[in-house]
């Protein structure tokens, strides 16, 4: 089961994802991210992955696409709360060096 929630923190949009991120749910997640970008045009988007139990290549693709769409709006994408399993996938695919990754949501919002 996938659970997605969004909220605003000042000029930043925070998307919290919980559950298994795979091929079956990417459409749902893509819609949420697109709507958030269109509605709020955030200067900073934070995606909190703390509750993600599994992410496959479709999920990674979605995060890359999210970065591209936030970039296009001159915004920044910060990821936070990567669980060990997800961190491993990020390391294997070098995405650790592609995204700005923070330990906590607070850190990601501060950008520090």
């Amino acid at each position, binding site marked *: 089961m996938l659970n997605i929630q969004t909220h605003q923190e000042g000029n930043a949009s925070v998307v919290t994802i919980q559950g298994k991120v795979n*091929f079956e749910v*990417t459409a749902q997640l*893509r819609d949420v991210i697109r709507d958030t970008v269109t509605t709020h045009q955030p200067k900073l988007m934070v995606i909190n992955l703390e509750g993600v139990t599994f992410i*496959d*290549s*479709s999920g*990674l*693709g*979605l995060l*890359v*696409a999210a970065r*591209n769409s936030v970039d296009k709006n001159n915004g920044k994408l910060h990821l936070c709360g990567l669980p060990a399993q997800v961190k491993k996938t990020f*390391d*294997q*695919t*070098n*995405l650790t060096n*592609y995204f700005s990754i923070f330990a906590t949501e607070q850190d990601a919002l501060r950008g520090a």
Partner: protein
Amino acid sequence: MSKGIVLVVDDEAQIRDILGFYLKRAGYQVLTAENGNEALEVMGKVQPDLILSDLRMPGMAGDEFCRIIKGGPETRDIYFVLVSAMDGSATKIGGLNLGADDMIAKPFHAQEVMAKVESAFRIIGMQKEIKRQNLELTGFQDRMTTELAIAARLQMGLLPSLPGAAPGFRYTHRYLPAEGIGGDIYSIVPLVDGSLALLIADVSGHGVTAALISAMVKTSFESHVRPGGNPLSWAVGMNRDLARNTLSEQFATAFLARIDPSTGAMQYVVAGHVGPIHIPNGAQGGLHRPHVLAGHGFMLGIEEDLPFEEKSAKFDHGDRLVLFTDGLVEVEREDRKLLGEDGLLRLCAELPQSEEAASDFLVNAAKSFNDPAPFVDDVTLVILDRV
């Protein structure tokens, strides 16, 4: 052209005549019968769209006739209206329970009957339209299934043919797409200088889109290896091809290698792909110490100009390489335990000697890890032995 065919069944000639007159005037073709038996006889020649049948008739009565019509696979879709006095022996509910589509109470006004007939024909028209659309959809689905089957055969044709042999090497594969057609691909190309170029890749997503991109990945790989070069230059070229030609969500994990059989030197690039398993002396079967060819790197196609890293290793005579896509190890048991790369590594410690037997062993072991659930992702396994 009549608006449709109505069969009027009544033992009273007067009623048949009145209904027949109004129906013909409204543009319908009319058939008549005195009872159920005669009606069935008439229907042996012409199938009506609508039946208006009296309930009480000598010979076969209306209820029995209705049951026969609604029980026959050829006739049950004919709209059936029972005409009867509602005097206790027949109720509307009773008639509908027989399977009749509607009832008209006797005595009736001809206009009431005509209104019912018109509304029945509207429903008949809609039913015919639904049937036609259904047929069209089924036809469409059949064509899609056929097309997919052809595409799947074509995709199988993109794989190296078996039994696989290149100077100094033997190999085999198992290719199990999750949806008939999938995003996994591999390629083995002997180069002019005698070395071997090797690719295994897994395109994000499933189905037709992934399959199209997988064909692109293979073409890109083969065009970059022909002039020579090394896995690093191949990865950079393929990354550029994919970044330019696919959407931002689409990319491929890949492992690329070049093995020189004269020296046993292997160079490789891991592009976000699960590291293959190298088994020194593994081609002889038996107990060995497998290890993962370590490395990490970006997937191909995220963005142009991302850096890749090339590594080197030894691949000696009698060594075995087990290449796979993550679908093989991402099998999850009910207790949520994954087979994982560690699990596969353990299985690789003691493999049968022949590539074929070793492939079957690994696929079956991965499958039985979550028996009887099928693999959810595309699965590709390649076993390459240096002779």
